[in-house]
């Protein structure tokens, strides 16, 4: 007689998608099931492993993960997994681990595929479950990004460990060993609040062992002074960027000018894609333009990896801007090695997307130099031109092409003393016209990269103070922000580029992220916003309550969506060995992306209409 597998049959009958099958197929499924038991905490599937059966949880529970280890989903009795792998390439997409002792039933893959093909109700049920999981995954994803935007103080797990300046190196090392810490704060008897310095494991290695220093010498000899602090309410993400920028791996955390703890890179890196980190540290190890340019493939790899790890555009944009900034800083160091120290202080500026922390892999260099007012062109300009030329050539070699608008420090107009820069900005703001401002909007996103950072700060303060008061300036900026429109036609269909080599595609920068950043900038200038990043500016704009209700969050989502379409497009090109660009062909997008991209462009279009209305008085 044909054996009936009663228990398996009764179980499958209870759960979707099997409850969509006719009785005889259910019997076939039950008869062909195989079974295995796993203890809690066992890895059942690895990423990209071959898979030949649908996995059904009979008892217990499991978790599925993204490749980077973040949680994707949890399933228990009746839950199934592995269908994505079976329907696609027979490879596991999400690694799976048991969280309880678990019994699994396996339905052979060929049988599952046949049911999927032959029974629409079965296929629909599988898809419904998948969609439910994706929406669940989006929620998880959001909460993961919230951890990145969590405050620094949440990472502090213990009081800071400290020692007196007069203690010996040996005593310091023993204390670090006993307390199991990788850094130690050093205090001075006179100034009790703020530490005088810090030492790390690395200092013990580099400044003691490697140079044969006497361990009974005072620890003050080997400490790093001029500490860089983070504020307790900074975001984890900002702390990470500070670490990248300063190349420091331990930062003391301040709360009301008292140190409440020290966060280490390892605390932060758990939240962050590490690849960009290695690149930044290797940038500072290169000794020539040629060596630096050899890091470009690694930069691309790190970009692709962040995309694969589902990082959002704000994280990717920041990481890429940090990498770009590091290239600039290293090039400036190399230039100063070559041409000697600067004759007068100067600040090297980043403009545009780098200042906004919104870079991708397709970007040109927009930079400028602010010189000390003691600058004398006859005596000093040759030096600064040499430096500017060196950096500009170096950036070009590293994939940051020369700026076609000539907004570079090599242009004498953009290599001027601070007082001249203040005049520029005052003139732009107080005597504006759309024509005059046409090519200067980029200067309103500025950030210091190296040197006298207070020059950059002073310029930003001037902009924040003056801009909100000058309606004509805002009106002119608004007018220019409307020059580039989203690619939507009268019937809400896509309007594609008509000629040139990018026919039938949409320029996602010129028609998308560019106009969004432009219009956010106008609102930001109007309220004297502190920050430069478009998402951060938007937060301030929403708080200032100058947009109709709901429009701010809509605009944020639209920017995120367009940015990610652009970023994913570039990542795909890199993976295929093509040159990445901004031109996305709608036919290459999924239906889902196409529909949402249209919605995003519509939001941009509405936001532009509102901008015109709001600032037309100027």
């Amino acid at each position, binding site marked *: *007689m044909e054996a009936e*597998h*009663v*228990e398996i049959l009764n179980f499958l009958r209870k759960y979707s998608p099997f409850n969509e099958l006719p009785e005889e197929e259910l019997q076939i499924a039950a008869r*062909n099931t*195989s079974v295995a*038991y796993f*203890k809690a905490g066992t890895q059942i599937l690895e990423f990209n492993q071959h898979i030949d059966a649908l996995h059904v949880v009979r008892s217990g529970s499991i978790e599925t993960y993204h490749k980077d280890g973040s949680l994707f989903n949890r399933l228990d009795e009746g839950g199934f997994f592995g269908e994505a792998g079976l329907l696609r390439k027979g490879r596991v997409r999400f690694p799976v681990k048991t969280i309880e*002792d678990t*019994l699994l039933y396996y339905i052979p893959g060929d049988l599952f595929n046949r049911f999927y093909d032959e029974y629409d109700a079965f296929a629909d049920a599988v898809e419904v479950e998948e969609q439910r999981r994706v929406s669940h995954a989006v929620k998880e994803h959001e909460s993961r990004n919230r951890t990145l935007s969590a405050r620094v103080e949440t990472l502090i797990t213990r009081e800071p460990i400290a020692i007196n300046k007069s203690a010996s190196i040996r005593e310091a090392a023993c204390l670090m060993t006993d307390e199991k810490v990788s850094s130690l704060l050093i205090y001075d008897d006179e100034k009790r609040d703020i530490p005088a310095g810090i030492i790390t494991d690395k200092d013990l290695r580099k400044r003691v062992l490697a140079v044969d220093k006497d361990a009974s010498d005072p620890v003050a000899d080997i400490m790093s002074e001029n500490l860089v602090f983070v504020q307790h309410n900074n975001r984890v993400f900002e702390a990470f960027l500070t670490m990248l920028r300063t190349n420091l791996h331990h930062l003391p955390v301040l709360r009301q000018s008292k140190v409440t703890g020290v966060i280490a890179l390892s605390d932060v890196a758990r939240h962050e894609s590490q690849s960009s980190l290695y690149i930044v540290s290797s940038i500072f190890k290169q000794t020539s333009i040629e060596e630096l340019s050899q890091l470009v493939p690694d930069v691309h790899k790190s970009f692709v990896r962040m995309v694969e790890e589902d990082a959002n555009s704000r994280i990717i944009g920041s990481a890429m801007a940090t990498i770009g900034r590091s290239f600039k800083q290293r090039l400036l160091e190399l230039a100063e090695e070559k041409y000697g120290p600067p004759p007068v202080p100067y600040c090297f500026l980043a403009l545009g997307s780098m200042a906004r922390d919104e870079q991708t892999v397709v970007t040109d260099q927009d930079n400028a130099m602010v010189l000390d007012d003691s600058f004398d062109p006859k005596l000093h300009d040759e030096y600064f031109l040499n430096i500017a030329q060196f950096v500009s050539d170096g950036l070009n070699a590293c994939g940051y092409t020369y700026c076609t608008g000539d907004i570079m420090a090599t242009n004498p107009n953009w290599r001027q003393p601070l007082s001249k820069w203040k005049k520029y900005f005052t003139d732009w703001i107080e005597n504006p016209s759309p024509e005059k401002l046409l090519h200067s909007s980029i200067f309103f996103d500025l950030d210091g990269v190296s040197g006298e950072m207070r020059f950059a700060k002073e310029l930003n303060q001037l902009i924040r103070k003056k801009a909100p008061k000058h309606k004509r300036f805002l009106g002119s900026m608004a007018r220019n922000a409307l020059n580039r429109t989203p690619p939507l036609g009268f019937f809400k269909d896509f309007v594609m580029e008509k000629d040139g080599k990018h026919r039938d595609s949409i320029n996602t920068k010129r028609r998308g992220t560019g106009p969004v950043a432009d219009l956010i900038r106008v609102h930001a200038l109007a309220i004297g916003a502190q920050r430069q990043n478009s998402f951060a500016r938007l937060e301030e704009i929403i708080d200032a309550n100058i947009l109709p209700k709901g429009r701010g969050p809509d605009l944020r989502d639209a920017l995120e969506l367009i940015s990610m379409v652009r970023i994913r497009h570039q990542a795909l090109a890199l993976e295929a060995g093509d040159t990445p660009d901004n031109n996305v062909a709608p036919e290459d997008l999924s239906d889902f992306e196409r529909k949402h991209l249209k919605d995003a462009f519509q939001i941009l279009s509405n936001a532009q209409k509102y901008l015109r209305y709001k600032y037309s008085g100027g």
Partner: protein
Amino acid sequence: MLYLPPDAENKQQKSTIDWPKRFQELAKAAKYPPLKRYYEAGIANAETAIEEVPMVAVDFETTGMNPDKHGIISIAVVPMTLSRIDMSKAQQWVVKPRRLLTEESVTIHGITHSEIEQAPDLADVIDPLLEAVAGKVWIVHYNGIERPFLQGGFEERLNETIHFPLIDTMEIEARFHRQKRSLWDKLTGKKPVSIRLADSRERYNLPFYAPHDAMTDALACGELLQAQVAHHFAAETAISDIWLP
């Protein structure tokens, strides 16, 4: 399966039988050709890691507990390894016992009189049964049923018996849950942990299966072994540490 196993507080002793060698001798001595072939298929030696041993989870439904007085009514054989139980190769036979079938055993096992009336004699399923278990180590829950009933059935029909090693999941359960019972527990009358199949399964978070269907019980027993090895042994554990001494 209602009474408790032999004195479980005896320490586990290693099997002294060299089963592969024993199978060779038995093959020579066996008269019935399918039985000869069964022995010739060989069996895992004592040092083999459990993960490499081909096994069968087996369950018999019988008319009672005594192989001398009662008979087999159904046999389920589920081939498996430590990592997978393959239900697509599972087999089940209903057989007609030569001894009296009681009303009670019929209702328990859910097999009707007419099914049994039409069923073949054990003699007719010996060949496919031997084929299904050839080269494989048996897994049962409580060793007092399947092997003795089969040996009795063989004796009666072929005038020769059958020998093979087996894993007893109830005995394994006793090793881990009966040794811990302290004198204090006994003095205070604390009940020993139940090592019946359903109760044992619950300890490993295995699902409840309705008992008394041979196929389900065999599957239940196979799953229990996977769980026991996952918790108490390792995939590399020698089979001699697991099967009955």
